[in-house]
Structures are given as structure tokens and as C-alpha cells.
């Protein structure tokens, strides 16, 4: 069963159509990279997938949970009930470009607060898992620090730990290294690589083409709201067929 599946997604902001007929299936353990020029709709797609925006058309599913679907008699996609969507939110995690940690919470509380206060899990058990995650991220000594005391790379690792604590079925990354110095980019890419090795299902919007080529099973090239080309890294990045993809990669001196 696919972890995440969308068919014929359409999304407009006013008269501006940002997503046009997007279809994508992400299987368990797959790492999918989405590349493409700015304004191609990559980030909007991620925001729709993570329920920060609602699509106008199409169907979306996590595992067997329907998020939205086309129904006869409606001229737009119909979303599931709020309680169903609440459940869906536990199935995915999102790592933001700007980390978006809560500045008034310590590192540990940033990770623990949602599981304890939203999902009502036991504090002791969550704390153990949070510490284990911090250990994995090499940040165990920073548990009591506040986000403002950390480097960008460390903050991003905390935000990855925060996303992982609820054991999501799929993890989305929205340009996770774009706000980082080139020096710090490596530490985040290493974490993602480790997660990929552990068969974490991931969808990564990125401008790091080399990284996308190295880490992903599947690469999606988006432009002007369409998926122009998709396939293995060798196909899309190594030997792109579409002129639009070729032009984009050439511009990046690839």
C-alpha cells in the first residue's frame, strides 16, 4: 500500500493556478526528491500535502485515510471531517526551511510538547524517546538549551527530531538546507541520508541536485505547476528527456 498518494491535484490562489494536475505515489521506504525552478509549485505542493493549504481539485490519501476526494455534485475537492484530518496529521511530519522551533521552549520541550500535550502520550516514555532522538542527532547535551543558543544546523536537527518523535509514516522536507550556511548544509544532509538508510519514507523539496541524485529513489521535476518529468535519479538528473528539465539542469551547471 502506498504511504502517500495524490491524483490530479489542482490548486489556485485567486486566478493564479499554482498546481495543475499533480499525480504522485510514494511507496513505503521510498525517498522522493522534488526539484524545479522557483515558482514551479514545489512548496505549494508540500503545503497542500501537509494540510497547510487546501487543494481545489483532486484526491489525496495517506495509507488508507482519505484526506480529500472528488465527489459527484461538487465542483471542488471535498475534505474529510476535522477529526479524520486530526488523525491524518499524526501520519506525517514536516521539516521547515526556517526550522520554526518554538523559541520559548527548550530543545527537549520543543520535541516533547506535542506528543505529551496533543497526543496525550506518557511524559516519561516520550522523554526517553526524545533523548534517544537527540542522541542520534548528536545533540544530547543541548536538551536544556533554547533554540536561540543553537546554530542553524543544530536547530534544523532539533526540528527533525521534533518531526520524528510522533513516528510519522512519511516525512516531508521543505528545502531543509536553504536557510543554512554551506558549512552546515552537510550535517543536515547526513541526517537525511541516515534516515534514508533506515528506510524512512521521505519527500524532499530541494535545490541540492547532487544530494537529490545521491539519496533519492525517485526524482520529480516540477515546472509551472506540472510534474514535467519523473523517474529514477539516473533518468531525470542523469539523462533528462524533457527540454524543460534539460534547460533547468544546464542552468545549474549540472
Amino acid at each position, binding site marked *: 500500500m502506498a504511504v502517500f498518494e495524490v491524483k490530479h491535484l489542482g490548486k489556485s490562489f485567486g486566478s493564479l493556478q499554482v498546481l495543475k494536475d499533480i499525480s504522485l505515489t510514494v511507496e513505503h521506504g521510498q525517498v522522493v526528491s522534488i526539484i524545479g525552478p522557483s515558482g514551479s509549485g514545489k512548496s505549494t505542493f508540500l503545503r497542500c500535502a501537509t494540510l497547510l493549504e487546501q487543494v481545489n481539485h483532486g484526491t489525496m490519501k495517506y495509507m488508507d485515510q482519505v484526506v480529500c476526494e472528488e465527489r459527484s455534485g461538487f465542483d471542488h475537492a471535498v475534505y474529510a471531517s476535522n477529526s479524520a484530518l486530526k488523525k491524518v496529521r499524526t501520519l506525517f511530519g514536516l521539516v521547515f526551511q526556517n526550522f520554526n522551533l518554538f523559541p*520559548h521552549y527548550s530543545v527537549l520541550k520543543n520535541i516533547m510538547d506535542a506528543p505529551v500535550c*496533543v497526543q496525550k502520550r506518557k511524559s516519561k516514555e516520550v522523554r526517553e524517546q526524545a533523548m534517544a532522538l537527540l542522541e542520534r542527532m548528536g545533540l544530547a547535551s543541548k536538551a536544556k538549551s533554547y533554540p536561540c543558543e543553537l546554530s542553524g544546523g543544530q536547530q534544523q536537527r532539533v526540528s527533525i527530531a521534533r518531526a520524528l518523535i510522533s513516528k510519522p509514516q512519511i516525512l516531508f522536507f521543505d528545502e531543509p538546507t536553504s536557510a543554512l550556511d554551506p558549512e552546515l548544509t552537510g550535517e543536515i544532509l547526513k541526517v537525511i541520508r541516515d534516515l534514508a538508510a533506515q528506510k524512512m519514507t521521505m519527500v524532499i523539496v530541494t535545490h541540492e541536485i547532487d544530494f537529490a541524485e545521491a539519496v533519492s529513489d525517485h526524482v520529480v521535476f516540477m515546472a509551472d505547476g506540472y510534474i514535467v518529468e519523473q523517474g529514477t535519479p539516473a533518468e531525470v538528473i542523469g539523462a533528462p528527456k524533457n527540454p524543460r528539465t534539460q534547460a533547468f539542469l544546464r542552468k545549474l551547471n549540472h
Partner: protein
Amino acid sequence: MGYLQTLIDFYSNSTLLKTLRLLWESFGVTVEIFFLTVIFSLPLGMGICSLRMSKFKPIAWLMRIYISIMRGTPLMLQLFVIYYGPYYIFGIYVSDSYRFPAVIIAFSLNYAAYFAEIYRAGIQSIPVGQYEAADVLGYSRIQTFFKIILPQVIKRTLPPVTNEVITLTKDTSLAFALGCAEMFTIAKRQASGQTSMTPYIAAAVFYYIFNFVVAYSMGWLEKKLDYYR
């Protein structure tokens, strides 16, 4: 023994000490106006702020008009409207005991308007990413506001709130206009009775010390919240 008696006589007949005692007693009323106004206007301001930011336009506009009137007209005039309004508008006779509540109502309504705008600036300064992170993590709207947004808003609005609160201390003297027996009213009465500046200067010292303590406490609170940016 005779010496002690002379000392006691001196002090009990001292005009200055009598003035200080009277001011100190009426200072209690000033402090009462201050704290009651703070207690009512801080949360009321939050209510007005949330309606002002409501997506339902007529309510938002109503609050804009309310804030505009409260900020655009003198507090002294508002005191009169609240105190004499019931009689002039509705013909309801109000007793003297309405003086103090009228002061509290007028001050709270007025200061809430200012606080509402301070909160609004604070709320709008919180990056949208905070809401999005909370949303993705499953926080409800109420949880997001009280756990994530409000603590940050409080930290950010502390300096302008301190400003308002210091102004409030001084504004309590406007209650004089309704004959409410707070410190300034008493100081004025003493000054004209003694034909002396001393009561005014003594009152000034009281106001100053009180505001010094207010500013110090708020500064302390600001420092307490300094553990994050």
C-alpha cells in the same frame, strides 16, 4: 518622660505629618484604581483585540470605531460620560457610591483600547511559521494561541505595556474630576487649606516612588523572560 511627651505633641501637631498621613490614606484609593484598572483592562484588551482581528468584518469595524473613539477623545471627558451618562441619557439617578465604580469602568474601557492595539501589534509580529509548525504538530487553534503565541506576545509587548501602566499611575489623578477621594484630590484640598505647595510635592513623591516600583517590577519581569529570543 516630659521630653517624650513634647516629642509626641510635636509630631501629632505637625502639619507635615498630618498631610503625609492623609495622603497615605488616599494613596490607598489611587493604588486601588491602578490595580483594578490593570486587572480589568489587560484581559478586556485581549478580548477587544481578538474581535478587532476577527474575520467577520462588521465586528472588526465596530472594534476599530471603539478603539478610535477611546483613543481620540479625552479620558477626562470619558469619565464624565460614564458618571453622568446614566442620568443625562436615561434619567437614572445615580448615588455617590457610583463615583468609584464609574472611575474604574471609564479607566478600564479606555486602557483596554490601548492594550488591544498593543496586543494586535504583538500578535502580528509573530512569524506565520509558528502557526504552521503548531498546525502540522496537531495543536488545536486554542492550544496554539495559549501555548505558542501568547507567551511570545507577552514577552514582546512587555515594554509598551509598561509604558501604558506608568501612564495609568499618573492618569489616576484624573479621578479628581469626579470628586473621587484619591491622592490628588486630597493633595489639592490640603494645599488650598494650608495655602502651601508642600502637599503637592509630597503627592509627587508618592507618585514617583510608586512608578519607580512599577517600572522596576516590569523590568524584572522582562529580565525573567530574557532567556529566549
